[in-house]
């Protein structure tokens, strides 16, 4: 029997992995991917709650999140491409200045 807790554990694990990726990785693209994982962890949690509470609110919200994530990816990738054109790097170790 798969209970709510199992879903939530998976969701938490995904979120923790995402956070760990953001903190540990140096490549801006990989950090961006880890960020997407966080969003999806949240999505999973929402769907789980929705399923067990027999309410569709959570599932509606998930669609919004997916839409926003798509927009965010578009903007974020554009920023990263622009950054790479200017600095010739996407490593956060080298991108430590506010000045371009």
């Amino acid at each position, binding site marked *: 029997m798969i209970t709510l807790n199992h879903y939530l554990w998976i969701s938490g694990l995904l979120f923790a992995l995402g*956070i760990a990726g*953001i*903190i540990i*990785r140096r490549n801006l693209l990989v950090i961006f991917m880890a960020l997407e994982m966080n969003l999806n962890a949240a999505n999973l949690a929402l769907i789980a709650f929705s399923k067990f509470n027999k309410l569709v609110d959570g599932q509606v919200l998930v669609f919004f999140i997916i839409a926003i994530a798509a927009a965010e990816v578009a903007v974020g990738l554009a920023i990263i491409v622009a950054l790479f054109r200017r600095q010739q790097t996407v490593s*956060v170790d080298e991108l*430590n200045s506010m000045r371009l």
Partner: protein
Amino acid sequence: MNLLAATTTDLGMNGKHLLCAVWVILFAPLVAAGSIMLFTQRRKGLSAALSIGAILLSFVLSLRLFVALAGFGIHHQQHAVQWLVVGDLVKIEFGTTTDSLAILMLLVVTGVGSAIHIYSLGYMKGDPGFSRFFACLSLFTFSMLGIVLATNFIQIFIFWELVGVSSYLLIGFWFEKPSAADAGKKAFLVNRIGDFGMMLGVLLLWTQTGTFNFAELPAKVAAIPSGTLALIGGLIFCGAIGKSAQFPLHVWLPDAMEGPTPVSALIHAATMVAAGVYMLCRVSFLILPSEMALYIIAWIGGITAVMAATIAIAQNDIKRILAYSTLSQLGYMVMAVGLGGPTQAMFHLTTHAFFKALLFLGAGSVILALHHEQDIWKMGVLWKKTPITFGTFLIGTLALAGVPPFSGFYSKDQILLLAFDHNKSLFVIAVLTAVLTAYYMGREVFVVFFGQPRDHHAYDHAHESPLVMTVPLMFLAVLSVIAGWGDKLPEFIAGTIEHEAHHPALLTTGLICVPLVGFLLAAAIYLKRDPSDAPVKRALGPLWTLVENKYYFDEVYLWIVKYVQGTIAAACELFDRWILQRLGIGGLSFGTDLLGRTVRCLQTGSIPGYAFLFGLGITVIIYYVVVK
């Protein structure tokens, strides 16, 4: 306004005019001082005329007032306008008191003042500050009249300070001399100490009674607890200690002799220093009920009297001897107040004003005759050269020593009898002082006017002073002789303040001999061809050094100021430098700097670092929100 109405009905038709006259008496000298300072600085003759005219006007009007009011037994007649009102709490008037006490003092101030103003015309002749001198004299007269006529403590305090200011201006009149400038400063500062006490006393009195008015206070005094009343009396007496130069604040008066001699005569002998005694008499209703305050006042007066008299026997400056004699006589007056006899104090104040002004003006005449020589050991045989000065000076001396029938005898006698009735040890001190008074005055007269000429050049050029100076001398000499006759003065003031009648017995006869002892002693030592202090020096030994150096008061005060004030200043400096500057200001700036440096380390610019801290922060917040 009720008071005014009552007064006018009392006096009949003339009343209103007379009360206007009081205002003229008060303000005429101020107008003179103002116009001299503003308009007539360059026209010396006009300046002098304005100043002398103003005081003569005040004198004549005072006489008129005296004649008009002598018949009435008037108590505390006030004529006042509201001046300062703060809600129901504080009401201060600016007004005039016309009772016999005030009128007597008016006569003394304007009468002696007139003589001295006229005398100054001769004494200050050719001085570059001639106009300024008369302006200051007039300003002083105005301030003194303000004290005399004041209706309340605030008014008296304002004029009290004004008197201090004019005294400062006149002591330091020759301000280009450092000693004169210093003496002015010293007088002002020493007086401030006393005045501060007086202000505290006045404020304390106000908290107890809610009024400053002399007419309203006597009724409310009874309600004050006796301890507080003694404290108030003592604090107000502090003002008198400063102004009347009593021990331990007497040190400014001898130094004040740096001023021109007419100033010494007017301010530091006849009138200003008497302000303290006058004020004590004016507020005697505060002091008389308190045994404690009376006791302190009497003893301070007694100590001052004998201390100053002993110092006077060893001084060599003709004016300083008189200055210490003034201290001593003021001590008598204060002692009389302390023994419960304000009337006797006022009596002595009046006669003393006459003969001490006379003595100072005489000394000034001698000084001028010898071209500003003040050392008595450079004078001699002046009775031949300056007969009028000698004659009047002798009258003043006899009056001061208390030889009958001169005025000083009557007034001093009353104080001695008072002391005999109330306090035997003070009586002994007072008699001793009287002997010493006759002794040092005898010494001064014998050395200055007899013996042989010591400085031949000065002696050959000595000359009698002009008429403008000798006439005031003669006027004051006459007053010094007759002022005490028939005990008229005490009877006159008795209408205002309490007066105990005395019946002199065998004691009086004994007291007549007191000055004789002093004179004989002085004559034995100094009445010869070549007198000197040597025999007295031998007899007194170290005591002579002690009195010659004025008991080292100045040195002790200097030491106290140097060490106490120096220590306080050093402590303040340490506090300022280490606590305020280093710890306060410095600590604050150092702390801010350190905080800035520390926080700067967090701004690495590394995104994972920020993300980690952000995550940590969120975790902590969630922990507190959810778990706690």
